[in-house]
């Protein structure tokens, strides 16, 4: 995963930014706000009823972060620290809104051991009958924007527990251990949710690619020949 570096690369200078902001460097704070707020907004949005409330929660989180800054010793990553504050506040807000959503009460979808790939795609011996078609990488890159849109909507439709775990892990880049701690579940449970959510997203993407991403264009009058 050649692109996986971008989230990790941020970790090194988080410490430096925190040091600078302790000295009152406003730009350091602005950088951190720009870096983490979009993630925080998306996560907050999973717990509260509207975008406006989610924005409030993110603001409160940053203020809480500043207030508690002297207690931040850099033992956990800044991101984990922020998300811990965020999730606590978002849950409190969600409860106040009577949208009481402890993670354990959310829809989990199927967490059993039913297969994530349709059983009829395999023969009696367990080998592929309908194997996956390898992705054509240049084609994938050419349609990156569309595919991103497809995945975004597919993600929104996942059962909630799967959606939260996939969002925190695969979109926001937290480790399974961090996700598990944050949500109060076991790492193993987090992986099961992750696995089921991912399998669904992969199937969506494969279905989309197989049916010809972009090949049906121009479908919505987007060509500019007018």
């Amino acid at each position, binding site marked *: 995963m050649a*692109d996986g570096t971008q989230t990790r690369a941020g970790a090194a200078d988080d410490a430096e930014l925190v040091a600078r902001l302790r000295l009152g460097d406003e730009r350091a*704070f602005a950088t951190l706000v720009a870096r983490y707020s979009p993630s925080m907004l998306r996560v907050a949005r999973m717990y509260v009823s509207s975008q406006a409330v989610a924005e409030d929660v993110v*603001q409160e989180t940053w203020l809480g972060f500043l207030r508690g800054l002297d207690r931040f010793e850099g033992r956990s990553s800044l991101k984990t620290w922020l998300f811990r504050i965020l999730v606590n506040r978002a849950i409190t807000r969600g409860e106040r809104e009577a949208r009481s959503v402890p993670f354990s009460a959310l829809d989990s979808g199927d967490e059993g*051991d039913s297969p994530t790939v349709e059983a009829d795609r395999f023969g009696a011996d367990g080998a592929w009958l309908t194997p996956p078609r390898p992705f054509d990488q240049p084609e994938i890159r050419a349609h990156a924007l569309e595919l991103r849109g497809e995945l975004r909507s597919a993600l929104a439709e996942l059962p909630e527990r799967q959606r939260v775990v996939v969002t925190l892990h695969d*979109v926001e880049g937290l480790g399974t251990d961090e996700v598990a701690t944050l949500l109060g579940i076991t790492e193993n449970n987090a992986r099961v949710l*992750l*696995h089921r959510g991912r399998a669904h997203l*992969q199937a969506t993407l494969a279905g989309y690619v197989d049916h010809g991403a972009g090949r049906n264009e121009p479908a919505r009058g987007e060509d500019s020949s007018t």
Partner: protein
Amino acid sequence: MTVLNFLGRGAPLSCRELVELVTDYLEGAMPARERRRFERHIAGCPHCTAYLEQLRTTLDVLGTIGEDDIEEPVREDLLAAFRGWHAERAGDA
């Protein structure tokens, strides 16, 4: 198969079994022996290789769906709050 078991390599995985293990594999949550069994299957199975590659691509795309910017007004409010926080702190010291 008995010989393989005897050698401590475990029974070969079927494709159907393998697809349920991809997350454990990618998350490094597999004991070394299971991992070898997984990799042995992948090495000889172009279909499962394609499946795993599809998943990797899915994860690459997923990693990019969060890229958007925070609204300006929110940012301004926060920076104002930061100035307040810093002033108060400097006052305390």
